């Protein structure tokens, strides 16, 4: 947790810090954030990030809706969220200040670029008076620097145009922030040199800006409010580390799922925010033996993956809510034809086009129920960026073992956020190799494994196993088309029993923090993990009887979940939706669980969880 900083000392010692970089979407804010995250990860900190950017690619310059922000929480302690309130806010223009000022912690540090606080920009941001005359700023440690001019001075000798020179503003700022927290410039400098290798003058200008920003911190007379912060050196577990975003982890997990199942990975996808990053990641990996197909639309994307599954591969499609809606009919086909498939939904705000760049968890019902007919399928969900790796593997395992499509839920926050990840020992992952049926004797396409109820998987190219499948109902005993009434009942039951049977094959639900029974359980799923966990930790430190339960398996629910939940006097379910898991748990267990719901496009704050828990305990 953030310890109070004092303004008297010139260095502060903390165990975690939240910085929020904000500026115009053309200012390169995401880049600064990412590069800072990389440097601090290399330093050995734990961290969590939250990129918060507008849906417009280039909104008009200087407007509030064109503000892009990147929040990072880092430090030697265990970091689980991107932080409730920034300790340091960097505002590169008035609009960025306007949008983000409220979030700054009282007594926090505000760094602004006075060079961008021109009358015109102030007006554009919608201020009536000069923002720095605001009384509210009295309680913050305000650092006013003309970053625009300082950057131009630093790069003047390189001979760039004014426009190009100004582009280095973000890197100058990064240099200063790196100094503030004693982080190395090396990884940034390396990156600049590779990225702009073909444009030596750009390399030169950016390096000068980076060093100038750093030097400014070092040499400037104190009193400008600038100070250096010292964070305790963290002592993470030994091992090999890297930073990873949820999108990367999901892409790698899908590839790992293919390797563990001994199948080729086929991705059929169509660009959509915020899921495209998984497509981009896998597109760079064709030399890993991945077949990548950017289809003409969402429907073709999933259909191509179904075709790949029919041909014997691990078919995968990645999308977000509106795209998954388009795939619905095809998902039904995969359920009916009983073909393995992984459908990744990186959820965003809905309904319809909704809030493309903001996170929400409002597709849970779509995932569990959203199809025509009685069409059950397993649903799994990832809770942290790194967890996407393991959950993608689990989705692949269930899909291939049970011959079923599986929906994996992520959200925009998970997809875009990064965290340091101790690289797992891949040898410790249990392989689940698929054997395609080769034996013609006694074969029919819907012959089921007596235990898993999965049908046998024979693929085109195999002599003697030629067969026809489709979306029409099939005869239980031959796989041929059947309109028989009793047979339809039997097949519907078989599809249900197969998916329900997965309960026996998934881990019992654990309590990730707190006692296995007691006064209050806070049940969550997905990217709310960090906020809930920190919240429950705080409550427990105060001696309150609260536990945190976080679901990975949304459908079927773990076998012991009902009994587990019945062991608490109260159960609350925080979700970034109008109460979807709440409804599901009530329907399944007839338990009066209560929702804690928020749909602002922003993640939960730890304080919101704490407050909700207090309320539940008091009532």
């Amino acid at each position, binding site marked *: 947790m953030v310890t109070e900083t004092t303004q008297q000392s010139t260095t502060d010692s903390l165990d975690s810090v939240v910085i929020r970089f904000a500026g115009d979407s053309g200012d390169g804010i995401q880049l600064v954030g990412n590069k800072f995250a*990389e440097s601090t990860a*290399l330093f050995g900190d734990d961290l969590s990030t939250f990129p918060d950017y507008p849906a417009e690619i280039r909104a008009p310059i200087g407007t509030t809706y064109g503000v892009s922000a990147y929040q990072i929480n880092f430090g030697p302690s265990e970091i689980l969220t991107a932080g409730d309130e920034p300790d340091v806010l960097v505002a590169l223009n008035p609009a960025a200040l306007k949008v983000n000022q409220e979030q700054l912690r009282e007594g926090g540090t505000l760094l602004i670029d006075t060079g961008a606080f021109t009358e015109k920009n102030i007006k554009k941001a919608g201020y009536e008076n000069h923002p720095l005359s605001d009384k509210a700023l009295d309680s913050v440690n305000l650092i006013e620097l003309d970053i625009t001019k300082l950057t131009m001075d630093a790069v003047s000798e390189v001979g760039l145009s004014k426009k190009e020179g100004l582009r280095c503003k973000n890197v100058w700022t990064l240099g200063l922030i790196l100094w503030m927290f004693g982080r190395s410039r090396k*990884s940034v400098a390396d990156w600049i040199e590779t990225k702009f290798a073909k444009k030596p003058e750009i390399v030169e200008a950016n390096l000068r800006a980076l060093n100038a920003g750093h030097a400014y911190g070092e040499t400037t007379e104190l009193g400008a409010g600038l100070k250096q912060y010292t964070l305790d050196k963290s002592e*993470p*577990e*030994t*091992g*090999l*580390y*890297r*930073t990873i975003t949820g999108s990367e982890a999901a892409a*790698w997990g899908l*590839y790992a799922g293919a*390797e563990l199942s001994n199948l*080729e990975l*086929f991705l*059929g996808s169509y660009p959509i925010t915020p899921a495209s990053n998984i497509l981009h990641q896998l597109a760079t*990996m*064709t*030399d*890993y*033996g991945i*077949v*990548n*197909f950017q*289809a*003409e639309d969402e*429907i*073709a994307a999933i*259909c*191509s*993956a*179904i*075709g*790949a*599954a*029919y*041909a*014997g*591969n691990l*078919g995968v499609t990645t999308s977000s809510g509106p795209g998954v809606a388009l795939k619905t*009919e*095809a998902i*039904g*086909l995969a359920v009916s*034809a009983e073909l393995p498939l992984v459908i990744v939904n990186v959820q965003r705000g809905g309904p319809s086009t909704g809030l493309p760049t903001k996170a929400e968890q409002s597709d849970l019902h779509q995932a569990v129920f959203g199809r025509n007919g009685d069409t059950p399928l397993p649903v799994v969900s990832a809770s942290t960026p790194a967890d996407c790796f393991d959950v993608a593997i689990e989705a692949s395992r269930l899909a291939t073992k049970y011959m079923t499509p599986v929906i994996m839920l992520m959200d925009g926050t998970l997809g875009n956020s990064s965290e340091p990840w101790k*690289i797992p020992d*891949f040898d410790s992952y249990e392989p689940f190799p698929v054997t395609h049926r080769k034996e013609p004797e006694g074969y029919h396409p819907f012959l089921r494994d007596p235990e898993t109820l999965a049908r046998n998987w024979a*693929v*085109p*190219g195999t*002599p003697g196993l*030629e*067969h*026809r*499948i*489709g*979306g*029409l109902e099939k005869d239980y005993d031959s796989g*041929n088309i059947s309109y028989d009434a009793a047979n339809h009942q039997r097949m519907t039951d078989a599809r249900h029993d197969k998916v329900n049977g997965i309960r026996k094959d998934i881990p019992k639900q654990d309590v990730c923090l707190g006692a296995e029974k007691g006064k209050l359980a806070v049940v969550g799923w997905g990217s709310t993990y960090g906020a809930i966990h920190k919240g429950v930790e705080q409550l427990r430190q105060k001696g309150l009887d609260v536990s945190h339960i976080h679901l990975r398996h949304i459908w079927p629910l773990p076998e012991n979940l009902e009994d587990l939940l019945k062991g608490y006097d109260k159960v609350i379910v925080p979700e970034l939706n109008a109460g979807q898991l709440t409804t599901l748990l009530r329907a399944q267990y007839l338990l009066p669980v209560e929702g804690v719901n928020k749909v602002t496009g922003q993640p939960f704050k730890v304080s919101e969880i704490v407050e909700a828990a207090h309320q539940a305990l008091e009532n």
Partner: protein
Amino acid sequence: MNMISPPEELNAKDFASDQEVRWCPGCGDYAILKTMQKTLPEIGARPENTVFVSGIGCSSRFPYYMSTYGFHTIHGRAPAIASGVKLSNPELDVWIITGDGDGLSIGGNHMLHVLRRNVNVQVLLFNNEIYGLTKGQYSPTSKPGLRTPSSPLGSIDSPISPCAFALGANARFVARAIDIAHKPLSSVLKRAHAHKGASFVEIFQNCVVFNDQTFSDFTDKKTGADNQIHVEHGTPLTWGKDNQYGLLIKPGTLELQKVTIGEDGVTESDILVHDETNRTMATMLAAMEGPDFPVALGVLFCDPGTPYEEAVRAVPKAPGKNVKQLLASGKTWTVD
């Protein structure tokens, strides 16, 4: 070591499944099915390597009647599913069976893309100018004015020409045939199969129940000859019972003209020679219709290019690339 014995000779029966065929008696689909079952052994196809993928509609029941691999999918999506099959296993011989509603209405988008990408599959579009399975509504190829349950006053839609669509989508093989004309249909199927890349074949298919005789002007055994032309690469574009008609480019225009050989000083040497690699000519041939022009049959266009699946798979898996290597790649650091 296993001895690889030469595969035994197959015949039409080896390609017929044990399922009872359930089209209406007299439906043109029967003839197409028969021709397919006879043609496959002739081109050396193997049931285990052959996949029929279909969408929804009368024609899309086709895979159930073949003893090959088959996938009866969802409405309009067969080209997308077939693309996944072919990209996953380029060794397979993939046929798409679709209709005018399935392939050009609900699935028009996928049809466009499978053709322009040039995925090495054969697309057979059974055109009967009607929705059969849903009981006779007008389709995107129905003639204007067609009265159906959903167009009681006559269809007001302007129809699409499947071959013109395919040519516009940059298909590299476009051909036409008639359901019951076994020989020409068989030879078109063979050409389509031999073509590396997406092959598009429009088959005029008579729906005896909902749109009977809609093609009889040019398919009728007695009178059709004067109204259909079988185009063949390198031969003059002539037709008629006595081969008395021919096509030429009307001087000073970019239009075709129907002429009678021997009249107005026209001799056979004046007649335009079919060049199947010429897309403009193919487009003009595809657009011909009665009563002024014959309907063009045979291979209208064939100009092979790189099949899509070859391009997709151009980068082979590099040795040593696997999950372990991936996890340790890029920027990492060690805590000790």
